C-alpha cells in the first residue's frame, strides 16, 4: 500500500469518525430539545427505557387511554406488567407505526387497543401542527418514524421540521439533558391522570344499531389489525367508559360496528361503556376534561375492572416479588409517593377552583382555561421549565407561591416577581389565544409577537 493510499484511507477514517460522532450528538441534542410539555414524550421515552421484552401487556391508544388505565395499579393488584403506549390525540393511521415501534423492544403476550381514535375518527386533515407533533415527535429517529411522517402529514405541508424536529424546537426550548440519551423511565408507565374535575349529570343506557366507519377509518383499522397479526400475540380491542355527551350515541354505534369487524378477524372486544355499574363510575365525579377522560380516582376503578378482566381471560403471569421484576415493585413504591402528590394536588385544585371562581386569581384562570376542551395550556415557570408538573408537588397555594418565588428569577415591568407565564393556544389549529404573565399583583397579556398588550386591567 503506497503512502498516498494510506493517507487517503486515514482521511476517510477521520471524516467518517467525525460524521458518526456528529450524528450521535445531533440525535442526542434533538431528543433533548423536544417538547417537554407533551405527555407523549414522557410516555414514549419511558416506553423505550423499559427493559427489553419485559412487558406482558401493551395498551395502545390515545389520551383517554392513558388517563383511564394505570399499569402500576394493575401490577400491584394482578401481577402482570403493562404499559400505556399512547400519545395525545393518537391518529387512526398512526397506530400501525406504534405497533412496529413497540415490537422493536417488546414482545407482549397481549396487545390492548383502545378504539377511541376510530370513534373520534380523527385523521391528520382534521388537525394542524400540534396534534401531528404529538403523534410524531416523541418517536425515535428511525425509518419507521419517517414512514409515519409520510403517512400523517398531508402532502401539501412541509415535512422538513418533522423529519428534523430540532429545527422546530431549537431556541423555543431549553435543552433537557435528562432526555438526551433516551433512557428516562416514566415513573407511571405511561399513565397520565387528568386531575381536573368535570361533572356530568347522568349515565343513560344506549344500545344503538351499528354505524359503519368511514372507508378511510375502516382501511386504517384493517391496517392496524394486519400489523398486529404479523406477531404472535393476543389482541383485545376496548372502548373506555363513555360519559353522557353529544357523542355518546354515535360512539357506541361505531363501537358496535368495530366489534363485529375485529371479532370476525379473531380479535377480542370489550366495551367498558356497558360495564359502568361494575366499574362503579360516578357520573357526577369521575370524568375529567370531557366525557372520555378520567382522573386518578376514576382510573383506579377502570384499572381494577380492566386488570381483572385481562388477568382472568389471558392467564398472565404474576411477577410480584419475583427477583427479575424487582424493578416493578420499586416502581410501584415510587408511584405511591407520586400518587400522594397527585391526590394532594387534586384536593387543592378542586377546592381552590370552586372557592375562587371568577376572581382574577391566577390558578383559577389556569383551571378555567384547562377545562376548555382542545385548549393547550403550556405553563412555564420563570426559568422556562414546565410549570404544571411543579404545581403538582405543592398542596396549597401558599407553598406553591413560596416555591415560585424561589425559582423565580424574572420580574415584571413594575419590578414584581413574575409568578409564571402561560401560553394558551388551540391544540387543534395551533391558533394563538393568549399569552399571560401572572404576577402577585397583576396579569400581563401579550400578543403573538410577545409585545405587551396594555389594557385597563393592567394599568
Amino acid at each position, binding site marked *: 500500500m503506497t503512502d498516498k493510499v494510506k493517507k487517503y484511507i486515514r482521511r476517510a477514517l477521520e471524516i467518517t469518525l467525525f460524521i458518526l460522532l456528529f450524528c450521535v450528538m445531533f440525535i442526542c441534542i434533538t431528543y433533548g430539545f423536544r417538547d417537554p410539555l407533551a405527555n407523549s414524550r414522557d410516555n414514549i421515552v419511558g416506553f423505550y427505557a423499559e427493559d427489553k421484552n419485559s412487558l406482558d401487556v401493551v395498551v395502545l391508544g390515545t389520551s383517554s387511554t392513558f388517563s383511564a388505565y394505570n399499569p402500576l395499579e394493575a401490577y400491584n393488584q394482578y401481577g402482570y406488567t403493562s404499559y400505556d403506549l399512547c400519545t395525545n390525540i393518537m391518529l387512526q393511521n398512526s397506530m400501525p407505526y406504534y405497533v412496529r415501534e413497540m415490537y422493536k423492544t417488546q414482545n407482549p403476550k397481549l396487545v390492548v387497543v383502545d378504539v377511541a381514535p376510530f370513534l373520534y375518527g380523527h385523521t391528520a386533515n382534521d388537525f394542524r401542527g400540534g396534534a401531528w407533533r404529538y403523534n410524531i415527535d416523541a418517536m425515535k429517529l428511525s425509518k419507521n418514524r419517517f414512514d409515519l411522517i409520510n403517512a400523517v402529514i398531508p402532502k401539501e405541508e412541509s415535512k422538513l421540521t418533522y423529519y428534523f424536529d430540532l429545527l422546530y424546537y431549537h431556541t423555543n426550548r431549553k435543552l433537557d439533558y435528562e432526555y438526551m440519551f433516551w433512557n428516562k423511565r416514566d415513573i407511571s408507565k405511561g399513565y397520565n391522570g387528568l386531575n381536573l374535575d368535570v361533572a356530568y349529570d347522568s349515565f343513560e343506557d344506549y344500545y344503538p344499531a351499528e354505524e359503519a366507519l368511514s372507508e378511510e377509518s375502516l382501511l386504517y383499522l384493517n391496517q392496524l389489525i394486519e400489523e398486529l397479526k404479523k406477531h404472535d400475540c393476543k389482541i383485545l380491542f376496548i372502548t373506555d367508559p363513555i360519559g353522557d355527551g353529544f357523542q355518546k350515541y354515535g360512539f357506541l354505534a361505531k363501537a358496535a360496528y368495530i366489534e363485529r369487524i375485529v371479532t370476525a378477524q379473531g380479535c377480542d372486544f370489550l366495551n367498558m361503556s356497558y360495564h359502568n355499574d361494575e366499574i362503579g363510575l360516578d357520573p357526577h365525579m369521575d370524568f375529567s376534561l370531557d366525557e372520555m377522560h378520567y382522573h386518578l380516582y376514576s382510573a383506579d376503578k377502570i384499572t381494577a375492572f380492566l386488570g381483572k378482566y385481562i388477568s382472568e381471560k389471558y392467564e398472565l403471569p404474576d411477577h410480584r416479588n419475583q427477583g427479575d421484576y424487582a424493578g416493578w415493585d420499586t416502581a410501584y413504591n415510587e408511584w405511591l409517593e407520586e400518587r400522594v402528590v397527585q391526590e394532594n394536588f387534586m384536593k387543592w385544585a378542586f377546592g381552590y377552583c370552586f372557592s375562587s371562581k371568577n376572581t382574577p386569581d391566577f390558578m383559577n384562570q389556569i383551571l378555567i382555561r384547562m377545562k376548555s376542551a382542545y385548549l393547550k395550556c403550556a405553563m412555564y415557570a420563570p426559568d422556562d421549565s414546565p410549570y404544571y408538573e411543579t404545581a403538582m408537588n405543592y398542596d396549597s397555594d401558599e407553598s406553591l407561591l413560596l416555591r415560585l418565588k424561589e425559582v423565580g*428569577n424574572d*420580574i415584571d415591568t413594575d419590578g414584581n416577581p413574575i409568578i409564571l407565564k402561560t401560553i394558551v393556544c388551540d391544540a387543534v389549529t395551533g391558533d394563538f389565544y393568549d399569552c399571560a404573565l401572572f404576577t402577585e399583583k397583576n396579569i400581563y397579556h401579550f400578543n403573538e409577537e410577545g409585545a405587551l398588550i396594555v389594557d385597563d386591567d393592567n394599568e
Partner: protein
Amino acid sequence: MSFNSLQFLIFFPIVVAVYYILPYKVRYIWLLASSYYFYMCWNAKYILLIMTSTLVTYGCGLAIGKVKSSRISKWLLVGCLIINLGILFFFKYYNFSCDSLVYVLAKLGANFEPKRFDVLLPVGISFYTFQAIGYTVDVYKKEVEPERNILKYALFVSFFPQLVAGPIERSKNLLSQLSKPTKPEYERMRHGLLIMLWGFFIKVVIADRIAIFVTNVYGNIYEFAGVFLIIATVLFAVEIYCDFAGYTYIAIGAAKVLGIGLMENFDAPYLSGSSAEFWRRWHISLSSWLRDYIYIPLGGNRKGRIRKYLNIIITFFVSGLWHGANWTYVVWGLLNGLYQIVGDIIKPIKVKISSLTQNRVAEFVFKCIGIAITFALIDFSWIFFRANSLTEAGYIIRFIIEIHNWDIFATRRIWAAGLMKRDFIILALSMMVLFIVDVLKINKIDIWDKIEKQSYFIRMPIYFVMVTVILVFGIWGAGYDASGFIYFQF
C-alpha cells in the same frame, strides 16, 4: 439565502462537490451560476441590476483598455461611475433625498412634493457596486489589465461568498484567482470549514443572542431607559462586530474551501488604541476602498493639514452615507471623522505621554486606557448607527445620562429585556473566547492555523465542541426569525 439558513447548508456542499467534479475550464461558469442562484433566492428580479452593473463596468473596462486618449478614458470612467452610482442612488438614496429636500424646503416655506418610488433595497447593492467601480478605476489607473472573459468578470462581481456583505474585493486579488486552477486540498478545505465554524459561532451564539436584548431595549427606550440603554449600547458594539465579522469569516472560509483567498476584513478592532487604528482594523475592505478611491484621489494628506481634515470628513461622510440612507448614518460617519481629526491633533500629546512610560507595566496600562477610551468613543457613535432617527438618538443619550436605575440588578429587572441569567452566562463565556481569539490575533497568532497543525485527536474534539456549542447554544430554528445579517441592508 442567508448563511445561517438551512438552504445554505444544503446549497454550499452541493456547490463545492460539483465545483471539484467539473473540469477546471468550466468551473467558473458553475460558480457564476451558483452565485446568481444564491442572489436570486432573495429577489430574482434584482439579478438584472447586478447584470447591468457587470455589463457596464466590463464594457467600460475593455473600452478604457483599448483607447489611447486619456481624455476619452476619463469620460468613459465618468460615464461608468454615473451609471453605477445612478443605480445605487435610485434604489438607495432617491426617496431619502426627496424626504430631506421636502423637509428643507418646508423649513424655507416652500411646498414641493416630488414623486416617490416604492422600491425594495436590493441586498448587497453597495458592496457589489463599489467592487465593480473599484475594478473600473483600477483599469483606468492601469493597475490591472481589463478582463476579457465576460463570464469570469461576472463571477468577480457576483462571487457568492462575498456578494451581499463583502469583503469588497479588489480586482487585483480576486480576478487573478478565478483564473488559477485549484485542487480539492484536504487541509485547505478543512481550514476553510473551521473558519466558517468560527463565523457561525460568533454570529448565532453571540450576535443573535445579544440582538434579542438590544432589539427589546432600543425598541422600547422609554420602558428600558438608563442602565438598560448603557448595557444595550455596549452589547450592540459586540453584536455588530460579531454579526458582521461572523459573515466575513463564513465568507472567507467558504471561499477558502473553493480554493479562493479573500482579504481579511476585521483584525481585532476593539483592541485598537485609537480611532485611526480602529478604522484600520474595522471593515478593512471598505476602509481601504474609501482610502484608495476617495481619500487619496481627494489629495490625502498631500495638500496640507486643513485640506487633510476636510478630506477625512468627506471620506467619512461618504462612509456614513454608504451604510444607509438616513441622517443617523451620516452623523455616525461624521462623528468618526471628527474622532480621527481630534486624534490627529492630540497625537503629539499622546506620543509625549507614551514616551514617559518607562516600564512594560506602565506601557500596558497606557495601552489599556487607550483601548478603553477608543471603545467608549466608538461605542458612543454606535448609538447613532443603531437609532432609528436623530431625535431617538438624542433621547437615548439623554436617558443614559439622566436616569440612574442601577437597582435593576438588585430587583432583577435586568432579566425583563429578553435575556435570562443563563443567556448572560453563555454570552459572558462566549465573549471571553472571542476576546482571547482577538488578543491572539493582534499578537499575530493565527489560532485557526495553530489548530489545523495539531494532530487529529486534538483537532477533532475542538471541531466537535464548536459544532455542539453552535447547535445547542446558538439562536436558530423555527422559533427564531433568521433575520439575516445587519450588513445586508447596506
